[in-house]
């Protein structure tokens, strides 16, 4: 009874936040509602026992997305004008949104209350995967090709972001060059937090082999902390043509691919024999964390641009 009351309250607040984010004219208000929405979504994930997802959502939804959207808002200002729409566009949007929402709702409530799922199969094979956390086992072993392709997708997205750099911006540092008052609140905070953030990020990667955590969650935390030091003006983002940067970016997918190819000797692509599964996964996780963190930082900072004179 109380549990249901809690769940329903969370869902009502989630829907209110989403509604407030899509209605009204004030873009800033919509962004703030979206940040709160990301927070509530991680609470929702905890209620359906998906701690791994909640971790990723907490780091991305409450951390990186807010920085990305607020930064975009700050740079766009009044330049973001409305496109010209046909008459009755609101009505069409309303009908389509309500119609598709209702259809999905109808489908969800009609689902049988017990789904077969794949939990039993995953748990039965968990020992062979080399790790104790079923989610990590799926991510890096059972469905490793998903994760391998995803790490490559991240790189493609980064190439996409860099490719919209202006002619004069290429080869410069990504995003704006930030500055802050020397010794001020922002700078002190930016000096203090990364020390703890590094420990927490590493801890989450390490925890991922036995409990909730892993490369994506830890990498996102590290990325958020790195962005804070850049926002505080303590560190300048490296120039996009820096050689070590390029190497570090391809290192994660590269090592993953390499280990996957080594699997060919043991039988098939991406197959880890049980004896080496644990060290192989840990090695992949470490380099993947670094690559993911770096890629996310660069994605959030945006294309390289010329420093203002």
């Amino acid at each position: 009874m109380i549990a249901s009351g809690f769940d329903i309250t969370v869902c009502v607040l989630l829907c209110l936040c989403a509604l407030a984010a899509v209605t009204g004219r004030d873009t800033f208000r919509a962004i703030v509602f979206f940040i709160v929405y990301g927070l509530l979504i991680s609470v929702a994930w905890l209620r359906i026992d998906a701690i791994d997802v909640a971790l990723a959502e907490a780091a991305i939804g409450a951390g990186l997305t807010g920085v990305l959207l607020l930064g975009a808002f700050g740079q766009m200002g009044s330049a973001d004008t409305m496109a010209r729409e046909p008459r009755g566009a609101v009505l069409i949007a309303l009908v389509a949104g309500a119609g598709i929402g209702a259809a999905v709702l109808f489908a969800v409530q009609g689902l049988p209350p017990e789904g077969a799922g794949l939990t039993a199969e995953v748990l039965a094979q968990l020992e062979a995967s080399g790790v104790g956390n079923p989610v990590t086992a799926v991510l890096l072993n059972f469905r490793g090709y998903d994760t391998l392709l995803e790490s490559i997708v991240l790189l493609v997205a980064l190439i996409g972001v860099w490719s919209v750099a202006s002619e004069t911006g290429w080869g410069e540092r990504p995003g704006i060059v930030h500055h802050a008052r020397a010794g001020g609140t922002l700078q002190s905070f930016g000096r203090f937090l990364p020390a703890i953030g590094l420990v927490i990020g590493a801890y989450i990667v390490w925890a991922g082999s036995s409990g909730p955590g892993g490369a994506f969650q830890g990498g996102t935390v590290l990325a958020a902390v790195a962005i804070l030091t850049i926002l505080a003006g303590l560190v300048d983002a490296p120039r996009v043509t820096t050689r070590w940067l390029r190497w570090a970016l391809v290192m994660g997918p590269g090592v993953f691919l390499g280990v996957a190819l080594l699997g060919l000797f043991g039988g098939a692509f991406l197959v880890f024999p049980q004896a080496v599964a644990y060290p192989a996964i840990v090695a992949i996780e470490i380099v993947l964390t670094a690559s993911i963190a770096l890629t996310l930082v660069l994605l959030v900072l945006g294309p390289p641009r010329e420093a203002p004179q």
Partner: protein
Amino acid sequence: MILDAITMVLTLGGLAFFAAGTLGLLRFPDTHSRLHALTKADNLGLGLIVLGLALQAGTPGNAIKLVLIWALAMIAAGTTAQLIARSALVSNLRKDDGDRTR
């Protein structure tokens, strides 16, 4: 049993501070006084809840994590309060001067 009772009292006290903070946020007249009400109330609120739960945490590791969460939240609250207050002050002055640089 006694431990449970203490936890109940502490968490309820924490909730009361959160409620007080929200009330201040809703009722106080201007930006800076609202900020003042909020940062004091919500940190005490989280502190009492963390204290109450630390009694139930079982292992010392969990209790330490709880205290670390509280410490980090306090530092974040102090920093944001300072930055947002200053930002509000600066942008109000900028508005008064009528010199809009952006």
